[in-house]
């Protein structure tokens, strides 16, 4: 309930902000609804944008159950994309039934190694995982630029250096009847699987204990190190999967456009969802709907494109501040009034 309250509080503060600009919050939210959720096209727009966000959010939420704040999923997305693109070039003659799974696995493996390395640095060297993952994301983007502009560049990609384009057979299509690619379905399934892992298995239980109190977990001789490596790698694998879909479903080759910022929006979604993988699904759709509406808001209300970012910022601040309210509602409990 508290996240919903915080969401509404964020909306309320944002409405004040709009009023100060002389713009109507009612118009704004009506436009957001129409462009994000009001028509069939709006839903396709929103869900297409939600697909990578689901997976990016898992890259934050899974390590978070161990108490790790990993914010560098962007790095795993771009390198996963490069891995998928390069695998696709190597397998250009192979049947899609072989090539696509290999591309997907390549992307997930690279993502797992990249974020798993953050977990390893944390566990073996005591390096702060937040800083490490953020800095590694910059390294990943630089590495991607080097690869697509250098060794992996298709000589025919003149003004936009890219890997060679994937053949039509190696492109991931849309879900039948929808203009939304299969990344959405994979993202939803990934969220459900992650929820089962955390809530229904002993591994998830152990992770939650280690996240709650690492000393207690060690006293119980839980394998804290393996949990850290496993959960960070799994999160990275999901981010890598997002990179695979960006390449195979959207871009058709790996290039600098892979650094689209999904990894960073994923942080916001994971925190909004309080790192519950099931809650990620509706929240990723909500945030994607905001982004889908950004264009119409620019065009109809003459507000700058940053408006939706401001809204996201207010919501994020409200969520963070609401954390301090947990467990404090007792002050309103009747017995408190009696004894006080």
């Amino acid at each position, binding site marked *: 309930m508290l996240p919903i309250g915080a969401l509404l509080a964020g909306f309320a503060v944002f*409405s004040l902000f*709009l*009023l*100060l*600009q*002389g*713009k*109507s*919050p*009612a*118009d704004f939210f*009506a*436009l957001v609804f*129409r*462009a994000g959720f009001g*028509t069939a*096209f709006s839903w396709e*727009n929103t869900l*297409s*944008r939600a697909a990578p966000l689901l997976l990016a959010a898992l890259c934050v939420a899974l390590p978070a159950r161990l108490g790790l704040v990993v914010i560098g999923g962007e790095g795993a997305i771009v390198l996963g994309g490069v891995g998928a693109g390069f695998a696709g070039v190597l397998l250009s003659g192979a049947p899609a039934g072989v090539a696509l799974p290999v591309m997907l696995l390549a992307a997930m493996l690279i993502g797992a190694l990249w974020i798993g390395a953050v977990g390893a640095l944390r566990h073996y060297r005591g390096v702060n995982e937040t800083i490490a993952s953020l800095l590694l994301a910059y390294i990943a983007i630089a590495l991607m*630029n080097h690869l697509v*502009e*250098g060794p992996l560049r298709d000589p025919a990609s*003149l*003004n*936009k*250096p890219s890997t060679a384009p994937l053949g039509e057979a190696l492109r991931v299509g849309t879900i039948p009847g929808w203009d939304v690619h299969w990344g959405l379905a994979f993202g939803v399934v990934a969220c459900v699987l992650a929820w089962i892992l955390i809530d229904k298995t002993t591994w998830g239980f152990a992770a939650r204990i280690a996240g709650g109190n690492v000393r207690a977990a060690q006293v119980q001789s839980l394998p804290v190190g393996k949990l850290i490596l496993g959960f960070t790698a799994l999160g990275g694998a999901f981010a890598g999967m997002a990179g695979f879909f*960006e390449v195979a479903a*959207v*871009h*058709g080759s790996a*290039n*600098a*456009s892979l650094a*689209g*910022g999904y990894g960073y929006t994923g942080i916001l979604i994971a925190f909004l969802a309080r790192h519950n993988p099931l809650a990620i699904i509706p929240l990723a759709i909500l945030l994607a709907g905001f*982004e*889908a509406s950004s*264009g*119409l808001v*620019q*065009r*109809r209300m003459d507000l*700058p*494109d*940053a408006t939706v970012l401001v809204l996201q910022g207010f919501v994020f601040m409200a969520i963070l501040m609401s954390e301090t309210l947990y467990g404090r509602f007792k002050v309103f409990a009747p017995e408190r009034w009696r004894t006080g």
Partner: protein
Amino acid sequence: MSFLSPTRRGFLKGTASLAGATALPNLSYADSHSPLTVGFIYVGPKDDFGYNQAHAEGAAAVKAMEGVVVVEEENVAETIDVQKSMESMINFDEAKLLFPTSFGYFDPHVLEVAPNHPDVRFQHAAGLWTEGMPTNVGSYFGYIGMGQYLNGITAGHATTTKKIGFVAAKPIPQVLLNINSFLLGARQVDPEITCQVIFTGEWSMAVKEAEATNALADAGCDVITCHVDGPKVVMETAAGRDCFVCGYHANQAPLAPEKYLTGAEWNWAGVYTDMVQTVLDGGTIDNFVRGGLADGFIKMSPLGPAVSDAARAQFEATKAEIMAGGFSAIKGPLKDNAGNVIAAEGEGFAEDDIALESMDYLVEGVIGSTS
């Protein structure tokens, strides 16, 4: 900008419409009865003093035309975002003519969306339309390398150290042509001039652009130009280091009025109003359009106060030659900076030579490397 200065009237207006929340807001342009909605999409901010501002100035000219409604979106990424922005303009605004202006929008995004909307015309800047691509897609661009050649002539006269500098985004053909043209223009004045180039690796990365500009100034370059999306940082930093500057994309004279020599600018206002007029008249725009100074696709900023009379005379004479057509900036005898022959004596590449669109070398006299 009034963005952070709320007014009492604005606040009242906002609260009043909040009170009337039950009344549906006006969500369509239906009451304007416009026959043609034109959509412009930019990869960066419209006021970047550069690539995007040049296109936005073109959009502003279209906005002033009769019977046209212009819708715009800025900061649209070269991802599925731009596909959905185009479709949103088609779905919600009934746009019939779209100008997605960033190079990276073309393949795959424009090529992906266009076949689903055969009644909409997609005009893409800088793309290379070829036979077999959707026929409702067109690509257009201008020979702005000629503008950098003219920049180079003013730079050649202004430099005292015989070193000029270039801050470049990426070593791709369009950028390499600009670097080479800038140096070759300067060498028309003095063949001993060299041009140092620094690639930032990004189209828009203010910190690296400032570092590169300072590094060029430290290395003794006293005239600096650039090819990045927004030249603002380069212009201000270079002028702050007491270097002369040549502009690119749009007119940056207001940023460094004393130090600005001239600039190679896009003239999208003329190009866009022509294209929109063609559509209004029921005509068809060619799928592949290119043009230079003579065609009104590019223009030069007015010469600044630091340009000498000799420089002005050579600038005007060369400009007249270019306007006459068939001019080659890249001509023999010419080697690249690794010693390979690019053109023998008597050979040359005219501005409209398609071979220039796949340039992969830096000419002799440019200090720098493409990789």
